[in-house]
């Protein structure tokens, strides 16, 4: 269990959501779960940030939504990546890589 909730930047959360959905469509709860899983329990997304982020990304057109049935037979809204979303994910991945390298470089120089 992490000792603190890592605060995620808004842009980063968007990127993570896109990445999660690049694997397969999911509902909101599932997205949150998958992020926890994929980050080995380090990143926990608060519900208060997840849904506004989802709605925002949807407004941008990077994901689309559809009502469906979940594994346990409950009605849920599923999100999936759009073509524009896939492109955006690539862009954000590149940007993030560049940012991470730069930060890393700065931190390396003692």
């Amino acid at each position: 269990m992490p000792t603190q909730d890592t605060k995620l930047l808004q842009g980063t959360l968007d990127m993570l959501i896109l990445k999660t959905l690049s694997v397969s469509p999911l509902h909101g709860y599932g997205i949150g779960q998958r992020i926890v899983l994929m980050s080995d329990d380090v990143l926990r997304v608060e519900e208060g940030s997840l849904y506004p982020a989802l709605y925002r990304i949807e407004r941008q057109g990077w994901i689309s939504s559809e009502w469906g049935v979940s594994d346990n037979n409950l009605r849920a809204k599923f999100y999936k990546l759009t073509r524009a979303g896939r492109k955006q994910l690539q862009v954000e991945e590149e940007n993030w890589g560049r940012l991470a390298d730069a930060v890393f470089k700065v931190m390396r120089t003692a």
Partner: protein
Amino acid sequence: MYWLRFIRLRLRGLLRKERVEEEMDAELRFHLMMRAQENVRNGMTPESAMLDARRRFGRLDSIKDAAREIKGGGMLGTLWQDARYGVRMMTKSPVFTAIAVLTLAAGVGANTAIFSVVNAVLLKALPYHNSRRLVLVSGADQSAGPVVLSPAEAQDFASQLTTLEDFAAMQTQSINLTGGAQPERVRGAFVTANFFEVFKLLPTAGRTFTRGEDQPGAERVVVVNEGFWRSRLNSDPELADRKVILNGEPYSVVGVVPNSFRHPLDAEVEIWTTVQRFPGYSERRDARFLFGIGHLRPDVTREQAQVEADTVAARMAQAYPSESAGRVAKVELLEERTVRNIRPILLALFAAVGCILLIACSNLANLTLARGTARQKEFALRSALGASRGRLARQLLTETTLLALLGGGIGLLLAGWGTDLLLAVNPGVLPRGEVRLDASVLLFTLGVSMLTGFLFGLAPAWQLSRFDLHTKLKESGSVVGEGAGALRARSVFVVVQMALALVLLAGGALFIKSFYRLLQVDPGFKSENLLTLEYRLPRNKYVESSAQWEFHRQVVEQLRAVPGVESAALIRGLPLTGNSSSIRITLPDRETPPGGQEPQVLFNTATPDYFATIGIPLVQGRLFNDGDRLDTPAVVVVNQTLARRFWPGQDPTGKQIKFVGGDDTPATIVGIVGDAKHDWLSEEQRPQIYDCYSQSPGFFATVVVRTKVEPTSLSQAVREAVWKVDKEQPVWKVRTVESLLAYNVADKRFLMLLMVVFAGLALTITAVGLYGVVNYTVGRRTHEIGVRMALGARAADVLKLVVSQGMRLALTGVCVGLLASLALTRFIQSLLFGVSATDALTLVSVSALLGGVALLACYVPARRATKVDPLIALRHE
């Protein structure tokens, strides 16, 4: 792409709000369930599982709010909400809504109607190339005499005025058109060859004039407009051989111009020919009949052009002292000349409708304030539920703007009908057909409506901001009494309304009185049963004076023979037709004044029976008779004013008069006739001199016939009488003198009618407003009234109480209005005739009228109050 999605999203948030909310709820609930289930799997009890899940969600509301922010309708959404709420409120109080909308419709409608006329007449540029820079150049004497130029003078101006970039000269006249089925009269213009170039007008067929075509000796050419080409020339595409016979001579048609071109100052003109064809053209410097027209250079002002023109005129006066001594030049903008007369009328009307709108606004502000008090509980509740003051104020403003837009829409409809009515009742003062509800008018209406809505929404919105809403909510039952501020505001509104209504009533009454005075003016002749028409002889057919006189004499004879004719005569310029000419005279029996300063009198030519026919009495001496012929000494008849001016207290018969610019033979005065108005009923009496047709026949004549029967029944017979003498002689302007009289006063009548309508409207709105306020106040004070009556007050006391409170306001308003009237009515003095703008009797009577109406407006609801059963009143909250 993004924007499309954005709009779609917002629209969905707007239109499918419930669905969006539901979906959001469902989604969040699902998440909650999943979390709870997971917790249970991890070993929590169902209750604590749920609790934990909820806790993780934190403030559900703020998530929803954030989501709504993204998905919802945005600002448009809240506006839409407000609007729907407003509509609901409006349907709940239909009486208020109806009154408000109708009042607004009346106010906005009247304003729009007048504005559309103002727009068409005053604001729109004339339909000419660069029309705002067009100026009219005319001449003038020291004593405001004839304002035209001679061709020689026009040429000098053309070459010497550097401040104008082009210069043409023009004049219009009725022309005889023969060669068709019937002899016709057509309105034509005589212009210099560069005329069409000044207007940058290209012909649709053929050509316009070439240089030199306006010199004597050039071919006779004419340019016609499309209407003429279609009706008289059958749209013949081959112009080359077409000729028309104008004033007895053949002219070649060389070109056609579009119908959209209206000749300046005379829209009836259908054909244009060159200047030297004008009957009476001469190369003499004092043969004056032209106006100059041209564009100011881009960097030059009218004043600069005027200064230069003055210099040129002074130069001419020096170079040609006998012809041009004392003459000055006048340069005015064409636009100015066109609107000069109607501008004050339109501005007065615009001010009047502005007042009406203000009255309507204060009416509505009052009503809305009253309602605002009643809605306090509603607003207090909403405030407690989280609505901010700004939100509530926005709600109010949205409501009032909605009302205003609705009222404005209806007002637009009314304005449409109103302008149609105005044009139908058109006294010739308004331009026909160009008054339209076009874009600027619509914008105006929209702007005025929104402004109105905003203005009268401000009052209750402001009222709202002063209340402590929470306290109001806690108070049980109704609000007892209202804030002193609101009451004061309402009182101010009533006073303002009364004052404005009084000003309008005063204006209306003044116009009524002015019109009445005008109708009472004695024109100096008897206008009933008089038929008239005009004709002009072609020069080449009647070259000799004797031939001219023979024609005129025979016409009079034929006219006398028409059954139903009591008497017939000819006059050069009939009163009230606008035909008039002046002449300078010198009197041999006294010192000659210096050149240019000789006295000027109205000049006319008449046949002997003229005075009897039209009803001007002979005061002394004799009228013309058969003994006055071309070969006998020249005789004249003068009017009383002339006699009194130059020979006060003496008998002028036998005295002599000489005309400046004519030959040097004096004419002898043989008789004095009564005074008669000439151009306007409202003019001051001017000295007049008449000579006789038998001695100076000329080409132009106006027939005057007094009939025993209804005049128009003889129209054809009178025409034929002229045709019996020459069947090819066109005649025109067949009408009765009474119609001329009506036309003469038409603009004053028009103004009066409109002002009366507006004053009546103002009075009604004000009365309704006062009634509404008193009624409402009484309704709210039912409880208090009940108490009073239970404590022994009689009906009469209650009546007195309510009425006196209302009347106090009303009378204050009347006083303020009186002061305002005294200050403001002087601006309309120029439109009034025979009555002072501060006429005491008028002001007193309208004050009394307004006071009386106010009394009635207070009395009716007050009386209702007294009918209340005290027991019911006491129970009334």
